[in-house]
């Protein structure tokens, strides 16, 4: 929660699991996510007001919301992982001896990297299948393929972030 009046309480600098690549990747995701969020807000409000006041909702407004949401989620997932915001139960790991804690954190990051990588691959396969079978949204016929692709990219980035946690445990991912 951004807080304009918050005092500086000596919070640690945000983790940078991707090193030098962190800034451009995060910036790109924030731009895409921010634009998708703005679109989601604009469509929802316009649809609500047009429907309730003029009884003329946006044709395919639901379709537009759906695809905007996919882009918001696709950009938000790696951003939350890069910022170390994924909810985890650290109570047990934190009580381990330092060497064992590092090993467990590496193992945990490796497991997450493999799972995210596999999910990225599956989304990529589904993107191809969606294009092949012409899967689209209901009203506007927006093809699903590119949005499966966006999720594939999102999980590939997440996998990279988790993988960096294997090399640098505790870097946030």
């Amino acid at each position, binding site marked *: 929660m951004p807080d304009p009046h918050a005092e500086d*309480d000596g919070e640690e600098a945000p983790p940078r699991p991707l090193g030098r690549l962190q800034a451009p990747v995060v910036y790109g995701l924030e731009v895409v996510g921010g634009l998708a*969020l703005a679109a989601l*807000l604009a469509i*929802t*409000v316009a649809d609500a007001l047009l429907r*309730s006041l003029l009884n003329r909702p946006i044709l395919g407004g639901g379709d537009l919301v759906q695809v905007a949401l996919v882009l918001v989620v696709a950009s938000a997932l790696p951003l939350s992982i890069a910022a170390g915001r994924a909810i*985890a139960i*650290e109570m047990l790991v934190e009580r381990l001896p330092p060497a064992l804690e590092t090993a467990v954190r590496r193992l945990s990051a490796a497991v997450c990297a493999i799972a995210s990588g596999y999910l990225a691959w599956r989304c990529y396969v589904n993107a191809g299948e969606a294009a092949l079978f012409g899967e689209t949204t209901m009203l506007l016929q927006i093809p699903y393929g590119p949005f499966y692709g966006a999720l594939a990219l999102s999980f590939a980035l997440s996998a990279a972030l988790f993988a960096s946690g294997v090399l640098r445990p505790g870097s946030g991912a």
Partner: protein
Amino acid sequence: MSATAIGLLGFLGLFGLMGLGVPVGMAMLIAGLLGTAGLAGWTTAAYTLSGQTFATASYYELSVLPLFILMGNLAAASGLSRDLYEAAWRWIGHVRGGLASASVLGCAGFSALSGSSIASAVTMGKVAYPNMRRYGYGGRLATGTIAAGGTLGILIPPSTGFVLYAILTEQSIGRLFMAGVLPGLMLTGLFLLTIAVFVRLRPEEGPPGPSFTWRERITATGRATGIFVIIGLTIGGIYSGFFTPVEAAGVGAAFAFVAFLLRSRSLTLLLDVVRDTLRTTGMTFLILIGAGIFSPFVALSGLPGLVAGTFTGAGLGPHGTLFIILALYVVLGMVIEGLSLMVITLPIVFPVVVALGFDPIWFGVIMVIVLEMGLISPPVGVNCFVVSTIARDVKLQTVFAGVLPFWGAMLIATLLLVAFPQIALLIPDSMFAR
């Protein structure tokens, strides 16, 4: 290996992964994938994995989450969220325990908008705690008030907890929001009553604060109008049927954006708002994606039927079973984060509760209260730890001692809701009847 055994192994694997520090969403995703593969083969599991992920990320109803998160962040950044505290302070700060009561109201308003108990404890804590100490409040009451006050937000719409519960159990988000209104007000009243009793027994903990002129009170109340407009737009819009929950979220966020432009206009702050909204959205969706893969596996394993049968066969009766479930939630809530606990356990617990004949909307309300109790229960009541980082002059034990009376108030609220389900169901039922 039987389906039930694979189901149990899946849960063991899930808790094992969580114990290793694997993020809860990823742990559910992995356990769900491997479990589904064990039950239905790898091809089915692979398609479930990507299909459910896409379904969750493109689920229209879930667009309320980023919009409400955005609304809360914009309201916080523009100072809207603090206005209720400032107004309440000017009206009741001069009576014994009044500053603590103003803090509870401020926390309720802030966390209702932000949807986050922890964010409420942090932000309100930084404002309300020094203020209470400045006017001679004791550490117990000051810290207990802030740690407990934030928990009100999950009941007062819009609430992330209700959205997750609604999506996972296929209930109406609008009905759940409405069901939280009266219990939220009741719990706020119980918290205020707790403070009144506290300062009567220990007057030195909550001395009277400064008085303000009528002009100052009215000015502060005028500034707090914005928060009432947002809550009115969202709750009133949904109740009247004017807006769907998704539309209400959008309109609420748009209003908060206008308030932000009028009050702040800082581009840096706006970018911070967007950044934080995306991070919180990602955090929430990772859990939802995990739940979307884990839940079908649990259903496929037949475990919910087995558990329901076991409870029914035990002869405890519906309320006996309910109390056992709630007691388990209180205990588990002490060690597992609330929303995670909800998504992990609902696939098992929800069918049991429905089979026992309880109203799913009513149970949703009870469940979020009990989960919030975990946030202020030792040994890992997160809100207490958060407050102790702000109140560095007070020991953690003192914070836990301070929240204890409020924990009791939440227990009373839960018991009242069990005895009188109408408290939760009155508004949604009247909405449905129209």
